[in-house]
């Protein structure tokens, strides 16, 4: 590096650049959070959806599954499972049966644990997954399989 470019100049770019770009980032974050309500439909967050999110977290579902592509890659994407498994007509029935049937105990197959949830809790989780499936994700995932 050339001699005329001094350590002091490099230091100023470090502190100045960091502050400058962080402020831009904060500005964009502010704008994004203002735009979000149009895309997350937050008025649809009922108490059941809130309870469902808490159950999602307290059972560490993210430890095996992805939710909108984030999480673990061991088990299927669940951001759109509501649509994949029956939607309005069929999802809740499917989901209740599914949660109760675990673990499937098919030899050699990846196992999902039994979480001992009540019908009410399963319904809350279903409401959470329904709300999640309605989020505007800029069209992700590419197809129904997640």
């Amino acid at each position, binding site marked *: 590096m050339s001699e005329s470019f001094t350590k002091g100049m490099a230091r100023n770019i470090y502190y100045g650049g960091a502050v400058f770009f962080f402020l831009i980032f904060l500005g964009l974050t502010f704008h994004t959070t203002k735009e979000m309500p149009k895309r997350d439909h937050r008025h649809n967050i009922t108490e059941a959806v809130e309870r469902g*999110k808490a159950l999602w*977290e307290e059972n560490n579902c993210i430890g095996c599954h992805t939710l909108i592509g984030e999480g673990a890659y061991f088990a299927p994407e669940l951001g759109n499972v509501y649509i994949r498994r029956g939607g309005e007509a069929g999802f809740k029935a499917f989901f209740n049966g599914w949660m109760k049937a675990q673990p499937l105990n098919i030899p050699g197959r990846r196992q999902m644990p039994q979480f001992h949830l009540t019908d009410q809790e399963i319904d809350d989780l279903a409401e959470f997954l329904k709300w999640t499936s309605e989020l505007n*994700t800029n069209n992700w995932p590419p197809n129904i399989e997640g």
Partner: protein
Amino acid sequence: MNTLKYQSQAVAKPYFVFAMILFVGQILFGLLMGLQYVVGDIVGTLIPFNVARMVHTNLLIVWLLFGFMGAAYYLVPEEAETELYSPKLAIALFWIFAAAGVATILGYLLVPYATLAEYTLNNLWPTMGREFLEQPTITKIGIVVVALGFLFNLGMTILKGRKTAINMVLITGLIGLAVFFLFAFYNPSNLALDKYFWWFVVHLWVEGVWELIMGAILAYVLIKVTGVDREVIEKWLYVIVAMALITGILGTGHHFYWLMTPEYWQWIGSIFSAMEPLPFFAMVLYAFNMVNRRRREHPNKAATLWALGTAVMAFLGAGVWGFLHTLSFVNYYTHGSQITAAHGHMAFYGAYAMIVMTIISYAMPKIRGIGEANCNKAQVWEMWGFWLMTVGMVFITLFLTGAGVLQVWLQRLPEGGEALSFMATQEKLAIFYWLREGAGVVFFLGLVAYLYSFFVKEKTA
């Protein structure tokens, strides 16, 4: 023989030793998960995959934090040219952090996660159950307390001593680490906001402030093993960390593409994150440049190897594998696939696991009173460890990338009706997962060789 310039540097030792113990645990659980990927019921319902994964990733993060803390306790006094402000505080914090860490891991393993959440009163302030942030809220508070004590101790040391560029970059990185961790306490019931700010911890750590920590440690070790003028190395350091933040802060946008955010993030995220490899590339140039211009032959060949290896592997894992899937139109297909896992592995290993082993390699012989370097035989074992782990990780990454490409091909690219389901796709990927497990065993053998090197002594004639 005492080879430390400042006696208080020795407090780094328990941090380094404990980091290595946790590292072994991390890899054992990684191998278990690798098997669960192909033989789902290998341990029945004893250790569900999600539990093994929490143990694997949390042990990783915690041992890296122990490593960073050890590194700071070791190099800050020497850079500041003064003893550590309070060695007693450093030791006390070590025990608090170690106890909290062990208790948390045991909690994961011994009771169902929902029970752990209940016992630790998660409902009072829910923060659990999000990837990498699975720790009970009380553990998170403990982490903050330890971090504050640690920063206080280092801050006081730097205030009374010399404020070198290395110390300033390191301390800004560590302060940033603590500040961004505070977002772990923000968990709104709106998933959109939850996810957005979750990345303030995860991305702004690994592609922001942790790069400062890595850069500072690398600069320190390069000065020591090459004897190149400090002015030159420190100028490079500032340039590198400046590039890291200028690209990495807005680069956070590469995680916002599909998260209920405006479309402009697809542009901002793609453009800025595409430049994130630059600081990693600069690190490669600079590490090799400094070693070629060295003014001394340092007897610790292993430490030099680790320093060069870190720069190269961080560039490959973070730079090359990160670039691979960072543009929004590529990420649309690869998001949350095995390609993500491939990148996560090589980046974490290449940048952060290796920088911790670099400073351990340089510092441990001095802390243990052996001298400038371990005996030749021990270094040979250490270098075997280096190569086996590194080659093992290269193959883990390649096999996961193969799995990921095939996964995208079968599951993501076809139209809805023709695409294979997730589970059907996974069955087709089994061969890659078996190969990955094999590479994982090589990695583990490397780790054993590496740890064995600490016990190798020259035959006394």
